[in-house]
């Protein structure tokens, strides 16, 4: 440790409130110290940047067809004009991957927000009231948990028709029980905590204890789950698109569908399967890495 560092530590000890801000700032600082989190955040940043600026970044429109070099069974590989080559219909692969990021991000965020909102509300109600309310809500959630997500998605697609909305609803519904259970369990644990007892012993009202003391302290695992759920949502969206349950419009460049479409050309054009696969893996990995790092950063045991 250099003299400068030592001095910094001493100032920090002497003025704790200057050295450290709120809990959130603490967590962010810990996050920025973790290489895993940095890698993850870079991946997410690239993913979001590509999705937002797709029209600027993509060299072609994802639906433009260039038939000049296309022959049956032959796919022009990467070239100067088409960095990742052309797909089976002569569309620029790079542009389709870039536009595909938009769909992945959109599906991920919308389905996560819907699922988390409903799940957190249910968990909050169950965790706040306990007793028979808790039992009723949790049995409901158990039922939701018992239905396989794929089956649910097929059912919803059958009910509402094949569309991106159906995919988002299906993924949201799958997320509801996860968030509900997580928050409820976390709240039940926090309700037994010393500070909740201390607040009760000083006459703080029940609603206040639940909303201001217990709920905020129960959120850490939910935040972590949120990041991880985004990753899962992207995978699930890709999976559903792969199975043909996504948007009925074949021009929509979903990564999962692109992967599915290359199935029959795997021998002649393996690269066409690689690009969407890589895109899915990298974006999912970004959220996973950040989620894992968040879990560590928010760990109350490390807080001390």
């Amino acid at each position, binding site marked *: 440790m250099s003299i400068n560092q030592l001095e910094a530590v001493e100032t920090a000890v002497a003025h*704790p*409130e200057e050295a*450290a801000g*709120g*809990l959130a700032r603490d967590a962010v600082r810990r996050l920025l110290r973790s290489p895993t989190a940095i890698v993850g955040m870079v991946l997410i940043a690239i993913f979001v940047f590509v999705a937002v600026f797709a029209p600027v970044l993509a060299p072609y429109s994802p639906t433009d067809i260039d038939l000049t070099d296309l022959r049956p069974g032959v796919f022009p590989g990467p070239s100067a004009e088409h960095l990742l080559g052309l797909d089976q219909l002569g569309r620029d692969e790079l542009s389709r991957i870039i536009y595909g990021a938009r769909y992945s991000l959109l599906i991920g965020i919308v389905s996560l927000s819907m699922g988390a909102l409903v799940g957190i509300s249910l968990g909050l109600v169950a965790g706040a009231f306990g007793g028979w309310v808790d039992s009723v809500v949790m049995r409901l959630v158990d039922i939701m948990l018992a239905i396989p997500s794929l089956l649910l998605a097929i059912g919803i697609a059958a009910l509402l028709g094949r569309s991106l909305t159906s995919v988002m609803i299906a993924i949201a519904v799958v997320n509801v029980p996860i968030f509900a259970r997580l928050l409820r369990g976390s709240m039940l644990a926090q309700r037994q*905590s*010393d*500070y909740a*007892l*201390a*607040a*009760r*012993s*000083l*006459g*703080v*009202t*029940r609603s*206040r204890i639940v909303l*201001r*003391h217990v709920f*905020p*302290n129960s959120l850490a695992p939910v935040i972590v789950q949120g990041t991880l759920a985004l990753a899962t949502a992207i995978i699930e969206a890709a999976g559903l698109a792969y199975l043909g349950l996504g948007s009925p419009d074949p021009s929509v460049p979903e990564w999962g569908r692109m992967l599915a479409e290359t199935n029959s050309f795997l021998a002649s054009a393996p690269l066409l399967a690689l690009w969407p696969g890589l895109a899915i893996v990298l974006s999912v990995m970004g959220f996973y890495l950040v989620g894992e790092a968040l879990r560590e950063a928010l760990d*109350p045991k490390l*807080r*001390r």
Partner: protein
Amino acid sequence: MTAPVVSDAVPGEMRQGTPLLRVRDLHVTFSSRGRADVRAVDGVSLDVEAGSTVGIVGESGSGKSVTSLAAMGLLGRRGVQISGSVEFDGQDLLNMPEDELRAVRGREIAMIFQDPMSSLNPVLTVGRQLTEILERHTGRKGDAAKDKAVDLLESVGIGDARRRLRTFPHQLSGGMRQRVMIAMALACEPRLIIADEPTTALDGTLSAQILELLRVLVAESRTSLVLITHDLGVVAGLCDQVHVMYSGRIVESAPRRPLFAAPRHPYTTGLLASVPRLDQPRGIPLLPIPGSPSDTLPWSKGCAVAPRCSRTIDACLQGPPVLAPVDPAHLVRCVNQVEEDER
């Protein structure tokens, strides 16, 4: 043998007037499915006079914390049976509706808990947690509450109080946090403070500071204090009246001086012998009390202390001994008491 006494004497029954807190025959039983009931508190009676400091001493599992939690209505309902009576200033606390009880907690009776590390909410600033109680009970809002919070922090010896309001608990040391807890307990000038092992989680020098702070604050404001501890040393410096508990019952109850100068119950003498003392020659071994308390209806067959007691005689196992006065202020639950010349 003295004349047979059929029921327990009550500490302080001889005194005049109504005490601030009056606990009579308090029983607390925890039952859970598939397991034998645990009688955590088994007929405890005690008084806390206005302005006095009362110590409840006992080892882990003796029921001292449960007594206070039951009195405050903080035990929850499921699997807990409470009987007896707890009166605070004439009001029956055990049968009080929850919302009225909440108005008493913090306003009239406040508690300080053992572990300052976990008794403060980690996500709220110290200032927020203090003003929350002030808003709840005194109606002070905004700057008025903040000013009062600053006064409170200063009164418990926290310097630079206005800036400390913005700190989070994890940025404070253990001693500081316990000071904050004391400030929170004092916030609404309660008439009674129950401190449950307030210094157990702190190291020696800090513990002495915190106890001294409590002593001064309580004396200045004429607040009554119930001090729950396993440490006789803590009691020695602070309490007017001391109750020694074992397995849910009071085994000896006396004013501080007679308790330390002339303990009559073998368990009390055992506790005293197990505390290191500076005024004894070096090299004398400490005398631990062997074994640990059992929790399966310990008093039903005889004296619960008997299995661990060096003075056990046949009479100890013939039935539970009663709490009997050896003089008006000194009650002992033992059939084979330690006599003057044995000490």
